[in-house]
């Protein structure tokens, strides 16, 4: 397969996954903002969304206050924000457009229809009646794209690059989400604040509420939530799950120069596979997650250098 084609596939799936996770993050923030709290506390939650995506400069160039309306508008559809949901879906569609001959007609049509429908969404109405319907729509469209991929695409090399993009992006996004929410909810690192609604919202944001119930059958505690999102072997949005899939896909596309990237991915997977949540929390969840995100970024760069970048483009 052409390196450029693989590059487009990788980024197509990363952008779609990013749009979905952004919708999830904004949705959980929105849900949490409806729980009674001070205005300051509420705005702090919205501020975290901006910080999490390192968008302070772009945001404050345009808005002064990190309130719900500003952050939602900025993150959903602001044309000045290259990381908005709209921008991610547009980039996903553009990457798909560049390889529409490689993906199946069903995949392309689902992506293209998503873009066409997005242009009919009205941000003002969303602000008035609440953005949850929109977030549900983004999640649904992402699911449709995954479904079309799974249901129609040959599981060849192209499929593995799509998978790699999805899993590495998701691993990063789950880590980010956990990082920001955990510290808002457990500022001191103690097990004191176990607000059912707040934790419930976080779990629902990663579609893990029912999973949590099935897995633990007890009340919600921060450490168990952290355990679920990082170390659960079969929860599709956990770090361990994503890394295991990435290691598999990497093995299937391996070439002469990808050995080091495979080694690093395998090592990160093994560390997760044999980690204990108690140890992670003892040495600091934030440090653990920061390190994880750095290493995922390193893997993305590895994939890019080993497979996607053409020698001259890299020079």
């Amino acid at each position, binding site marked *: 397969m052409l390196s450029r084609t693989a590059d487009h596939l990788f980024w197509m799936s990363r952008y779609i996954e990013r749009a979905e996770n952004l919708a999830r993050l904004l949705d959980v923030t929105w849900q949490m903002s409806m729980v009674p709290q001070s205005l300051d506390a509420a705005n702090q939650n919205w501020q975290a969304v901006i910080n999490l995506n390192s968008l302070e400069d772009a945001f404050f160039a345009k808005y002064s206050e990190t309130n719900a309306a500003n952050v939602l508008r900025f993150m959903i559809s602001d044309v000045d924000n290259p990381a908005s949901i709209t921008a991610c879906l547009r980039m996903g569609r553009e990457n798909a457009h560049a390889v529409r001959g490689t993906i199946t007609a069903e995949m392309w*049509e689902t992506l293209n229809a998503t873009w066409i429908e997005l242009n009919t969404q009205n941000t003002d109405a969303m602000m008035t009646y609440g953005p949850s319907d929109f977030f549900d729509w983004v999640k649904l469209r992402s699911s449709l794209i995954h479904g079309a991929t799974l249901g129609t695409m040959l599981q060849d090399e192209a499929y593995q690059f799509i998978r790699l993009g999805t899993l590495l992006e998701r691993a990063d996004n789950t880590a980010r989400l956990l990082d920001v929410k955990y510290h808002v909810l457990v500022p001191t690192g103690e097990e004191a604040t176990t607000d059912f609604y707040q934790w419930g919202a976080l779990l629902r944001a990663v579609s893990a509420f029912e999973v949590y119930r099935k897995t633990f059958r007890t009340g919600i505690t921060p450490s168990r939530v952290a355990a679920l999102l990082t170390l659960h072997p079969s929860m599709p949005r956990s770090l361990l799950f994503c890394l295991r899939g990435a290691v598999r896909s990497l093995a299937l596309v391996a070439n002469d120069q990808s050995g080091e990237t495979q080694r690093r991915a395998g090592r990160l997977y093994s560390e997760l596979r044999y980690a204990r949540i108690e140890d992670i929390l003892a040495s600091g969840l934030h440090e653990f997650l920061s390190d994880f995100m750095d290493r995922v970024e390193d893997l993305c760069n590895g994939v890019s250098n080993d497979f996607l970048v053409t020698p001259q483009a890299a020079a």
Partner: protein
Amino acid sequence: MVAFYNEMNTADGGVRPHYSEFAKWLQTAAPERLARKRAEADLTFHRVGITFAVYGEDAGKERLIPFDIVPRIIPADEWRDMSAGLRQRVKALNAFLHDIYHDQEIIAAGHIPAAQVLGNRQYRPEMQGVDVPGNIYAHIAGVDIVRAGEGEFYVLEDNLRVPSGVSYMIEDRKMMMRLFPELFSRHKVAPVLHYPDLLFDSLRTAAPDGVEDPTVVVLTPGAYNSAYFEHTYLAQQMGVELVEGRDLFVRDDTVWMRTTRGDERVDVIYRRIDDDYLDPLAFREDSMLGVPGLLSAYKAGRVTLANAIGTGVADDKSIYPYVPEMIRFYLGEEPILNNVPTYMCRKPDDLDYVLNHLGELVVKEVHGAGGYGMLVGPAASAGEIERFRERLIAEPDGYIAQPTLALSNCPTFVDAGIAPRHIDLRPFILSGEEVRMVPGGLTRVALREGSLVVNSSQGGGTKDTWVLEE
């Protein structure tokens, strides 16, 4: 008022035999159903993304080419004559291209002035003495044909560079079968959906000598080209890679593509990029679309380009008037298809005539394409005519003129119901070991009432084209 030939109806209001079954069906079809079906077609084309990018204003937008639900029907005997004429014409054009890049016999014999060929902007001296596999230059030709009367067909132009539109031919057929399946059980419509197979076969047989199992690729300028949909479509249907210039490179006079598993040799390039942009080392050095060194690999016979470099000289409007002469010279046959009488403004007498009859003629830029830079006398305002007069006087070499043809009409579904609109036809002719084509081609229709310009960039639409089998 000229009486236009109507493809469906006779002058006395009757229905031509090959349209009789369709006319019966049309009578029973409720207008609301037709309108609904047309809307359904638009929706589907949008979702599938069968769109073209627009140049000029609204640049960057993607637009649909309007699809008309009334098919253009061609009876078997007419197609037999037409296809024989197309075969003949394309053979002669390929022979001409081989000749002018080798011995130049047609010039020596005095049939075409040397200056017209060698001084043409589209003539590529680099190609002199270069042998191409099978002596085929135009592997894919799109010849535009119009009808002026019963059995009276004219070739408007021969597109031998990168003719486009074949994906619309295919998509229009698929759309008709989806919208009105019942029509296909009432007609024996010759199939066209196997075009990509024929194309793939032609491309494979064009591979350099000694290559057993050639790797074929489609070379596109990229996602922002107006025909990008077609490039992806053809690559996908043939199961070959769609590449951009940056995916390819030349090493040791061989073309390679960069893949996730290393470099892979490329043998045949179906290129959808103009000559000028193919190789920045040989042609336009500012081209970001091409592959440095490609011409050198090509001349070394290590890769085949389809179409060959330098075909533009044969479809140039200043060469067009000589095509009948080529057919007689190379094939020893009389042309089956007519040429439109053409005034060459570089000739003082012709220029004089043209300037005195601007209101009746169609004036075209010699190097123009896509319906840009053309004057349709009868439809033009006095101001437009004057502006063109100035351009003609300033640069007579750059223009030809032709009488305004009474392009045939075909019933078309418009806002007011079914009404006649002017059409043309672009069949696609593939040259390999033999000359092949799928029956029919792409019918383009000028959707504006009275308009004679069918180009999609000028408000034209398309129709499914049915050649009826006997």
